[in-house]
């Protein structure tokens, strides 16, 4: 057994990764909704084990403001939040990518209140779907740990220079103790170069950042921002490849499980994916041609990879962890349907919204979804059709 394998709470593991990445500034609002991630980092900094500024601000709005300032002067910058915290941070979240500030944020996904809730779903991240950050999803503690290094590496790359959100499910991941294979300091050195910003605020070479965008330049600025996000894909793929070469764990924008010859696939994001892989095993044992597509890269959206993986598929069951009220069901299903609209052979896309605010979604629930979907074969499912699963009556 490797000596770097540790039993640890996933939040603490992720915080250790942030410390190992030798972050310079951490700004966070330290109470609810927050995780042990920044609590642990505050202890590491207070003990003197990490030479960084830990700035406990009075709100998440200030946390992201501080992050923008710190990143603008060239500091490696980190923050972390959830649900209402992200909502309060919202105004500044949209500014960071336009200013090309490679801040890294772990979003411990939790539901947005109304009714008041603290539990896990994806309503927080889906509320900022179009914020312009690179966004990835992780399924377990190891992936969360690995993606801290990935996020700094990709975001800070001079060709990218964009902020990155690492999504990890609140509670289901943040509060679980499991085994994580820690990187050695040598691996971190090899993978993550020193942050050298393309532009930074410095008195010796004054520049203007975050300036007014008059109508004659705003469109161009937005186009440039969008191009930057689209172009980041190249560095994302490179960073995953190199991580694989170092750790043996190769990540991809769209990952699959028994999808090659599947007629029906579940499409999942985040920690429910692991449970669904068990469902695939069980249904395969019954002789059903079932597989799984796991969407890891949410922005920039991996259109090409997705289309390639579902070319031969007849039916896709999309799991959503949030509702687009009055819209086309879940935000993920909407994207999948859009991505496949131009395809000649469109698979049937059914959409289940499940696991809202911590509602357990069991193996049997997924099997039930599969069986319900099989009955729909040959029928017409409209773009906007969806089922909110497991509603008690």
């Amino acid at each position, binding site marked *: 057994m490797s000596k770097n394998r540790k039993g640890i709470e996933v939040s603490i593991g992720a915080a250790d990764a942030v410390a190992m990445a030798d972050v310079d500034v951490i700004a966070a609002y330290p109470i609810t909704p927050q995780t042990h991630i920044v609590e642990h980092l505050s202890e590491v900094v207070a003990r003197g084990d990490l030479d960084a500024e830990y700035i406990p601000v009075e709100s998440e709005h200030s946390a992201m403001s501080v992050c923008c300032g710190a990143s603008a002067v060239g500091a490696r910058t980190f923050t972390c939040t959830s649900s209402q915290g992200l909502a309060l941070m919202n105004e500044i979240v949209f500014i960071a990518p336009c200013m090309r500030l490679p801040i890294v944020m772990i979003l411990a996904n939790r539901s947005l209140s109304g009714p008041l809730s603290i539990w896990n779903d994806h309503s927080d991240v889906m509320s900022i779907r179009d914020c312009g950050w690179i966004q990835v999803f992780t399924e377990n503690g190891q992936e969360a740990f690995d993606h801290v290094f990935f996020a700094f590496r990709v975001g800070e790359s001079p060709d990218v220079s964009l902020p990155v959100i690492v999504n990890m499910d609140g509670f289901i991941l943040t509060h*679980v103790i499991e085994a994580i294979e820690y990187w050695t300091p040598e691996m971190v050195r090899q993978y993550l170069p020193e942050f050298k910003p393309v532009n930074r605020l410095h008195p010796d070479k004054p520049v203007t950042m975050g300036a007014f965008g008059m109508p004659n330049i705003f469109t161009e600025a937005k186009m440039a921002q969008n191009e930057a996000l689209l172009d980041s894909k190249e560095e994302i793929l490179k960073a995953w490849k190199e991580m694989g070469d170092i750790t043996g764990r190769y990540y991809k924008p769209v990952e699959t499980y028994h999808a090659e010859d599947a007629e029906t696939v579940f499409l999942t994001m985040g920690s429910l994916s692991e449970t669904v892989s068990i469902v695939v095993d069980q249904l395969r044992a019954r002789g059903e041609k079932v597989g799984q597509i796991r969407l890891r890269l949410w922005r920039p959206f991996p259109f090409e990879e997705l289309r390639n993986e579902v070319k031969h598929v007849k039916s896709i069951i999309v799991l959503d962890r949030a509702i687009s009220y009055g819209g086309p069901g879940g935000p993920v299903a909407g994207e999948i349907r859009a991505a496949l609209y131009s395809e000649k052979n469109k698979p049937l896309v059914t959409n289940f919204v499940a696991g809202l605010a911590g509602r357990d979604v069991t193996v049997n629930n997924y099997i039930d979804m599969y069986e319900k979907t099989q009955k729909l074969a040959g029928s017409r499912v409209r773009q906007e059709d969806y089922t909110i699963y497991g509603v008690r009556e």
Partner: protein
Amino acid sequence: MIEIRLHGRGGQGAVTSAELLALAAIQEGKYAQAFPSFGPERRGAPVVSFCRIDDEPIRLRTNITNPDLVMVLDPSVLRLVNVLSGLKEDGILVTNTKYSGEQIRKELGIFHSLGTVNATKIAQEELGVPITNTTMLGSLLKARQIVDPDSLIEPLKKRFRRVVERNIRAFKRAYEETIVIPKQG
């Protein structure tokens, strides 16, 4: 895979017990998960925590509804909560109680294998407080050796530092004093 559900009251260390068990298993090279029943923390209220242990990576991330083992840290919870909910037929209930296994079996009307120990008494005598998390772990391992009892020593040392010796004593005493009666019929 072995699935364990732990019942206690907030503040008694049901979550810590699950953690220690998972850490011991991971130390043995196994895979494990420990997690609380997510929600606001409430001292004194009945709480549940969970632990999974396997030789293979664990992909299941749901609550545990059909446990192999149920461990009860506080005798009063036995009457408040259906601790037996979903317990497998050949599963084991391990409980803190001053009564005998036969008495508990009769009271709950169950056929399952049963491990009993007066953990509150042991904890009072060894630790000076009625916190039964480490004590009940000794009892659990007597009922079924999910991990080597020695594998718990390192996690106990890391967790309890100054009071580690007393916790180890309580753990070992419970291991010795637990009586396990087999499944009926």
